[in-house]
């Protein structure tokens, strides 16, 4: 019963902008786009579930608003130069919701669980590299990696590394997914798949004064229109995502505020660099010139995103801005001519079948038509699409020509933003996501360099160089860095989306 305060939100609906609405009580309803798959951070891999997990559990490290790493359960950390050893000093006097004290032993239990190859956990791969976890003392742990991995700190900040109460782990085993116990600001109450998740305030939370609301209910609402309607009627106080199309229609009305912020999600159209004519750099560049990104942002993204000027988004670590391919049909045509591509080139474009992907693909189709490329669009249902992409064993057998996709490196690290997508042969499907079959030894080496050190400057340099080469080689048509868009009633404060698309509610409060 926290949703019946809806009436107030609608006090007057004459569309006055920035009208203030109020709310009784301190129970907040958040409408999200899909179901949680589970609440075990070690065994879930979707941002949405991660968001929920983060309300109840915390990691050693975390991200702030701008994806900068901040300490949470750890006070401080250090690493050796080879990036093989990481030591954390832990915060003291923290208790899990079930009363178990938080200490080095608890950390060890969690990471042992993650690093165990037989665990069957979905997040095991992120931590497989941990060779051993040692309890130095009650409030200090040391991790040793089997090989150098410069991006490891980001992995520790990743929601997959949230710490679960060891007692609960023992008690529930795999069932922890439905009985999450952590140190976070909220405690688990009930989760009915399909209906929603309810959490309440953790009265004994270690950060003074937080949390500031009594409870939060998450409700899965798949249909965009319905989600928005809920916000409009006040059935929900916060919704996300908000489709870009709707932003204009609801922002400032009914006490609704839209928050649209840059994210680390990139949108691109990959070209199969092993396939004619996309094996020719000129052609790939031509396509980059042929697509009007301004129009893309206007028409497809409704101005809710910015142009993508590197293979990773600005908020990702070690991002280096590149010079844009300007929209220039003539130049594109010229390049195509140089490459010997004739008018009427036919190409297939694959992508997801949700309405925004279809819209983007249709737009690309229109754009490429201007330079004489006839694109046929194949929106595919997720399973089919993944099958089409990943059932390929040999790179040369790949049918894929053009692919509209997006990527969010959930660790916020350049490595995870680059390596799986354009990291050479090792990343070819079915190993990873290199659907453009881009394989530049130089880039491969730079990626390796970046990983083999924990030295910031060295890493930055490697990634900067790599980004430059990739940009030049243009395995993708670089489209946009997407915004995260959330809608909320203007009495909410302190609730925001992180650039990785996850939700932060620890500072949530209701203001008058």
């Amino acid at each position, binding site marked *: 019963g926290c949703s019946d305060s809806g009436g107030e939100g609608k006090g007057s609906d004459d569309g006055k902008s920035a009208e203030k609405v109020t709310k009784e009580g301190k129970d907040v309803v958040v409408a999200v786009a899909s*179901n949680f798959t589970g609440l075990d951070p070690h065994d879930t891999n979707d941002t949405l579930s991660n968001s929920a997990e983060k309300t109840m559990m915390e990691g050693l490290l975390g991200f702030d608003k701008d994806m900068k790493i901040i300490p949470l359960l750890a006070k401080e950390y250090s690493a050796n130069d080879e990036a093989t050893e990481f030591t954390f000093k832990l915060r003291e006097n923290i208790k899990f919701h079930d009363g178990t004290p938080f200490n080095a032993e608890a950390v060890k239990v969690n990471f042992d669980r993650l690093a165990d190859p037989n665990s069957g956990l979905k997040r095991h791969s992120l931590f497989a590299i941990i060779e051993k976890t040692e309890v130095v003392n009650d409030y200090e742990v040391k991790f040793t990696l089997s090989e150098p991995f410069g991006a490891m700190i980001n992995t520790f900040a990743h929601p997959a590394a949230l710490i679960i109460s060891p007692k609960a782990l023992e008690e529930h085993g795999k069932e922890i997914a439905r009985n999450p116990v952590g140190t976070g600001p909220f405690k688990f109450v009930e989760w009915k*798949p399909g209906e929603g998740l309810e959490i309440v305030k953790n009265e004994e939370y270690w950060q003074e004064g937080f949390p500031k609301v009594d409870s939060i209910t998450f409700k899965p609402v798949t249909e965009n229109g319905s989600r928005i309607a809920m916000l409009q009627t006040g059935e929900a106080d916060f919704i996300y995502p908000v489709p870009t199309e709707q932003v204009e229609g609801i922002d400032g009305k009914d006490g609704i505020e839209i928050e649209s912020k840059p994210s680390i999600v990139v949108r691109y159209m990959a070209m199969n660099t092993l396939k004619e004519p996309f094996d020719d750099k000129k052609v790939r560049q031509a396509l980059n010139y042929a697509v009007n990104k301004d129009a893309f942002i206007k028409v497809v993204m409704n101005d809710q995103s910015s142009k993508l000027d590197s293979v990773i988004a600005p908020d990702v670590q070690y991002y280096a801005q590149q010079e844009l391919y300007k929209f220039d049909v003539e130049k594109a045509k010229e390049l195509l001519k140089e490459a010997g591509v004739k008018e009427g080139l036919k190409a297939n474009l694959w992508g997801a079948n949700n309405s925004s992907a279809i819209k983007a693909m249709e737009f690309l189709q229109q754009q490429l038509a201007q330079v004489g490329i006839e694109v046929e669009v194949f929106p595919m249902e997720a399973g*089919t699409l993944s099958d089409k992409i990943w059932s390929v064993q040999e790179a040369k057998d790949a049918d894929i020509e053009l692919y509209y996709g997006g990527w969010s490196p959930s660790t916020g690290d350049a490595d995870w933003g680059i390596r799986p997508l354009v990291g050479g042969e090792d990343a070819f499907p079915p190993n990873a996501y290199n659907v453009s079959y881009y394989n530049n030894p130089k880039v491969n080496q730079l990626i390796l360099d970046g990983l083999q050190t924990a030295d910031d400057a060295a890493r930055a340099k490697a990634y900067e160089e790599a980004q430059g080469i990739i940009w030049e080689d243009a395995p993708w048509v670089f489209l946009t860095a997407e915004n995260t868009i959330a809608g909320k009633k203007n009495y909410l404060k302190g609730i925001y989306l992180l650039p990785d698309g996850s939700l932060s509610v620890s500072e949530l409060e209701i203001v008058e």
Partner: protein
Amino acid sequence: MFRFIIKRILEIIPILFLVSIFIFMFVHMIPGDPARLVAGVDATLADVELVREELGLDKPIVEQYFTYMKNLVQGDLGKSLKTGRAVSEEIGARFMPTFWLTVWSMAWAVIIGLLIGVVSATKRNKWQDYFGMFGAVSGLSLPSFWLGLMLIQLFAVKLGWLPTGGMETWKSFILPAFTLGTGVAAVVARFTRSSLMDVLKEDYIRTGRSKGLSERKVTWGHGLRNAMIPVVTMTGLQFGFLLGGSVVIETVFSWPGLGKLLIDSVAYRDYPVIQAEMLIFALEFIVINLIVDLLYGILNPQIRYE
């Protein structure tokens, strides 16, 4: 009667068996690798293989089938690939919402459909008839998801009378049940009309009149009861339609039911859940038709179950 039920229940078994084979084949024919989908977008190949092993998807398909059947016979529907929960649990939570939604849709559809049908039949070729039938055919011609979206816009967003979705109070039922039931109401109305019109031509109706019964008594007493017999059969078949419709409607109204679960599980190729759900749909369909047959027998004394 009792025998008849037993017999029908026994008849269900081979059908369900066929259905289960069919479902299994069908589901596995759908391209898509659940291991990949469950492992998630940023999983590595090793992860995927791990998941595959964990889920038992690395075994030969025939073996998977036998395992599935073996468990099925023992009443074990398996575990969801996606959430790891027992399928029975997963479905259990979603069953009632869909059930109630279907029931309420059916309830209003039948009541309204009958009313319109009877009025149309008795006022044949008058404006009431044209109006009723035009309405009914319209109801049948509306894309239900469109109707749903429009209704949300009107009643939830513009007027604020009803919630937009979810299943909380009785109010939450109004829009989805209305949307889902529209098509059925239309079918019931049309069918009642034609059935009643046929019945009103019957000799026994004339007999009723010749006894001096009023038109109302003849229509509602003698006519409708007989007209109901085919209507009931047809209504049973409409349940299938409702179940199918619920897939779309539940998406529009964020209904925490089976239809939405199905869409989700198809997206994840969550085989055990899809299989179980389809099995439930099939079972439901069969059971409802059994009930319809029983009702048919109650309405029609000429059928005796032997």
